[in-house]
């Protein structure tokens, strides 16, 4: 039991020490920063095996009572179940690797300490998020990771682009927090608690099946999930978030934080399970997001942004998975995605390191020769994400597409979803291999830039290679046909509160084959266009310039938000401050004062100074007074 507190407090300890320890030498920071996460990872493994031996027993450990106000009682506690354990392992494990990588990546930065300080804080917040036993502390962690995301996107605060991106990320994330908060209020209203267990136990009894309340709650939770996971329509911040250091992109904006939305839906599955409408919404959002992000990735020329869109696209797959009630497959894809996407970002980071922080893929090319290790890792990860058979992405993605295929047998419109997912799988292969070809193969486009290109040092190489290995073997946790290990493990979580346990679907071979075919097609197309240049990419773009521009400009969503939301609010603020505040609210106050002064000035004229006028006034007064008595009686 104490191990969970150990896991939780270690990163916090690291954060605290680093935040106040300005005289710490760089070496100490380099040990302490990743070290605490590494130890936490070890503790998580211990916890995992401890629980694994007991077949995933669920434990709810309450640390202390946070607040008591009437019947509003909230405890701070940890819920340790398979889902939390898996998340905990990913966060600490992948986190440790990325922190290790950062030691190399950030070694030149003057704010070395600050970086690890934020990163440790992030790990802490993420652990609070996944370990919490109540929605309230889920929200605490939720906002905590949003905060650290903000801090790390804006890490290089002297760059205006980074500052703007950080601001955008924060505000969009808070929109999600709002949805979560309101959802929490509704849950509290009906359940008088915010702890998971009592809520989940009574969902059908209190809210019923597909009632409007549960629909609203889940939709509001979905707002939070969508904002955090950068899904449509709150996705705009994620590509911009690439302004942060690359390890940040790897850890926060690929492996862990952005997948918190998936975790939320999976965690709240008793609620979502009672709200089929919301599940449909999740599927639709996921599918559209997957396709949308893939198209954007196709046209983008920024190595990190391509990866960002691919992240968005893959998380969209996870959404489809959890939306299709195939929670384990969603989490499975989350796990494998963490490996290969972190690996991809590390590769991208290595490339940027080699090319003096250049991110434009049009100026890259032929790096395979100078950076072989990076190339091979990148290649493995690219194949994994594209769904090349026998690599991890293949298994996890196919499980999701397969479950949609299975359900489409009963629900007609899911066929459209399935087709789009399969298509997107092909697109994924296309844009990922486009990236690979343009960066590592072909000839050098900017020889000057790549003059001193070389593989990164060991401290960066090692994590990359480990992740590449994981990207290969991670999928065997659920080998088709073999016992679905991860599904069985997670079932302890996902059967606990649901009367109708969602069965893990058997492998759908038809779906698998079609997806393999589209992927192959995608890779082939990428090979033709970007490696052989027959047809050249420019020609392809010229065939449909409007569509190309649409993809290049991200479907014009960013500009639309700026004009439709941001500017109107600013204009409203200006209007309020220049007109309403000045003339209405202040005007009433100061206007009445001015009116009094004016009337005072006017009344002074009556006081003429002539004594006979004064006497007249006395007489008039007397007449009035006497008249009052005489006539009123």
């Amino acid at each position: 039991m104490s191990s969970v507190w150990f896991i939780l407090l270690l990163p916090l300890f690291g954060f605290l020490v680093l935040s106040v320890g300005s005289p710490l030498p760089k070496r100490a920071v380099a040990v302490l920063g990743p070290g605490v996460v590494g130890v936490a990872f070890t503790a998580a493994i211990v916890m995992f095996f401890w629980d694994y031996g007991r077949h995933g027993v669920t434990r709810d450990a309450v640390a202390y009572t946070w607040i008591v106000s009437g019947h509003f009682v909230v405890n701070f506690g940890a819920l340790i179940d398979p889902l939390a354990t898996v998340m905990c392992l990913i966060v600490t494990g992948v986190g440790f690797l990325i922190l290790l990588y950062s030691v190399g990546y950030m070694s030149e930065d003057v704010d070395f300490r600050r970086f690890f300080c934020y990163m440790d804080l992030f790990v802490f917040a993420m652990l609070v998020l996944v370990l919490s036993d109540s929605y309230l502390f889920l929200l605490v962690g939720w906002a905590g990771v949003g905060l650290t995301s903000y801090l790390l996107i804006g890490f290089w605060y002297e760059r205006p682009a980074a500052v703007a991106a950080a601001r955008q990320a924060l505000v969009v994330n808070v929109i999600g927090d709002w949805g979560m908060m309101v959802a929490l209020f509704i849950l509290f209203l009906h359940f008088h608690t915010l702890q998971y267990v009592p809520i989940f136990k009574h969902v059908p009894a209190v809210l019923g099946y597909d009632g409007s309340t549960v629909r609203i709650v889940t939709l509001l939770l979905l707002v939070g999930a969508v904002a955090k996971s950068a899904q449509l329509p709150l996705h705009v911040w994620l590509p911009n978030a690439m302004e942060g250091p690359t390890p940040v992109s790897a850890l926060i904006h690929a492996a862990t934080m952005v997948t918190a939305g998936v975790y939320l839906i999976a965690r709240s599955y008793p609620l979502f399970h009672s709200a089929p409408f919301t599940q449909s919404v999740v599927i639709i959002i996921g599918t559209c997001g997957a396709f949308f992000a893939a198209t954007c990735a196709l046209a983008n020329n920024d190595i990190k942004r391509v990866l960002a869109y691919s992240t968005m696209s893959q998380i969209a797959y996870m959404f489809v998975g959890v939306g299709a009630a195939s929670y384990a497959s969603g989490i499975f894809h989350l796990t494998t995605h963490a490996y290969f996407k972190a690996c991809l970002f590390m590769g991208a980071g290595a490339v940027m390191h080699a090319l003096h922080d250049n991110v434009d893929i049009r100026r890259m090319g032929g790096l395979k020769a100078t950076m072989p290790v990076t190339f091979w890792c990148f290649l493995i990860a690219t194949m994994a994400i594209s769904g090349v058979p026998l690599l991890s992405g293949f298994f996890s993605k196919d499980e999701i597409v397969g479950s949609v295929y299975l359900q489409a047998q009963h629900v007609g419109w899911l066929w459209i979803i399935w087709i789009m997912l399969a298509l997107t799988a092909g697109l994924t292969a296309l844009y990922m291999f486009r990236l690979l070809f343009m960066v590592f193969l072909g000839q050098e486009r900017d020889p000057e830039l790549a003059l001193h290109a070389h593989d990164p040092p060991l401290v960066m190489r090692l994590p990359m290679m480990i992740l590449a290995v994981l990207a290969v073997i991670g999928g065997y946790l659920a080998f088709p046909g073999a016992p679905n290990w991860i599904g069985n493990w997670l079932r302890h979580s996902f059967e606990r509160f649901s009367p109708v346990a969602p069965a893990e679907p058997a492998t759908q071979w038809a779906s698998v084959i079609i997806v393999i075919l589209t992927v192959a097609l995608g890779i082939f197309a990428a090979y033709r266009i970007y490696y052989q240049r027959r047809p050249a990419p420019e020609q392809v773009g010229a065939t449909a310039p409007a569509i190309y521009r649409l993809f290049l400009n991200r479907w014009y969503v960013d500009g639309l938000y700026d004009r439709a939301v941001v500017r109107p609010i600013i204009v409203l603020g200006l209007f309020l401050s220049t007109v309403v505040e000045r003339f209405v609210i202040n005007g009433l106050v100061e206007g009445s004062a001015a009116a009094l002064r004016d009337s005072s000035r006017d009344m002074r004229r009556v006081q003429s100074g002539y004594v006979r006028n004064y006497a007249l006034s006395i007489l008039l007064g007397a007449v009035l007074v006497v008249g009052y008595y005489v006539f009123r009686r």
Partner: protein
Amino acid sequence: MTIHLTAADYGAVLPIMIVLGGALCLLLTDAFVKVHETEIATGISLATLLLAFAASAHLWAVNAGPAFPQGAGAMITGDRFGQFFNFALLLSSALAILIAPPYIRTSHFDAGEFLSLILFATAGMMLMAASLNLMVIFLSIELLSLALYILSGFDRNRPRSQEAGFKYFLLSSFASAFLIYGMALIYGATGSTNLIRIVNVLGGHAGTVASTHTVLSSPFVLIGIALMAVGFAFKLSIVPFHMWTPDVYQGAPTPVTAFMSVATKAAVFPAFLRVFNLALGAESHRWFGILWALAIVTMIVGNVLALSQSSMKRLLAYSGIAHAGYVLVAMSANNRLGATAVAFYFIVYAFMNIGAFALVLVLESRGEAGDEIATYRGLFARSPLLAVATGVFMFSLAGFPPTAGFFAKYYAFAAAVQAGHTELAIIGVITSVISLGYYLRVVVLMFMQPVEAGAEQVRAGPLSDFMLTASVAGLFVVGLVPWFYNLAVQAVQSFFHFTT
């Protein structure tokens, strides 16, 4: 009517006699003393006032009960109510005299003459506070007025002073005519000028006469009430009988203004109370409406007009008009709390209003244009004591706790609400908010504006310093220590003894 004069009768007039004696004594010294005339005259007058105060306090101690010597035939009374107002009157007189000497010197006044006139006026006022008969009221009102006419025009070399004296004289005589005409009509209706008799006839709280109804329906009584109200209202500067006030206050020598601004009202209000709340108390439904309207108009006009003044004395004149309105609110409540509030008000008002004039006076004694508010810029740097004291007076006039001005206003408005006239209290507090506009303007100038380069330090002199310190202390003590309020309660108890 047989006349028996007892020791008690003489006792009742003893304080007044002392003040009159002091005034005569001053005239004598004026004739003979040529060196240090101002100092000696000031000393004599202060000693006189102190003696009168002691006599008054003695009377207070002796006359615990209904204290009019000879039953219903009495002309004046030595009751606690009168003594309480005597305290206020003597206090205001003393405060005004304390700050007067530098001014007397700079203006080359004849100190003995000047101070004796103030004492004569004081004596008239004390007489008025003690009067139980319309005749005495008239007599005393003229006694105090005559002295004040002269005092207002005392500075013969200054046209403004002459103008003030003349205006005051003409208008006051004019208003007196209304007053006595009203008295005549009351006399005609009730057959007496004695307030106690009038109570009995009109069926005041005692309600003894059967023919109440017929008497009351007589137009004489009604018109008499109205005309007397006009006469009193003039003296109290109640709108629309207030127009002389700013001109006279501005033109009169500042010590006179300071003195009359408080003392006149402190003298007239008890008489007003005795006539209306006591003699005509049972008829409150007949006169209430008119006082109600006058109070409202007075509060509004006084406060609004003060907003745009550039002369401090005029500003304080309008402020005085507004305060008369507040006191009128308390009076029109026609209950014990109201009478208590009126009594309490004047002790407080003496401190804060005379204190407020001290600033003008000190500056004028130095030959500066002390009347111009604009010259108070950065006064704090020139004279911290003067600025702080004036600040306290302004806040007290505006009714900020914990100064006594707040308590005075509190009791006044509470009385109105207790009597069921919440609207009076509401208008009162709203006009008080308006009053902040001008009181705070003075404070802003003194404390928040930088002093002009080359401005000299201001020293007020020991007597003035004493007066300022005492007034400031008084403003805190009188409000916070319940003893003073209880004193007023006891005074009012004796007032209502007449009828219960």
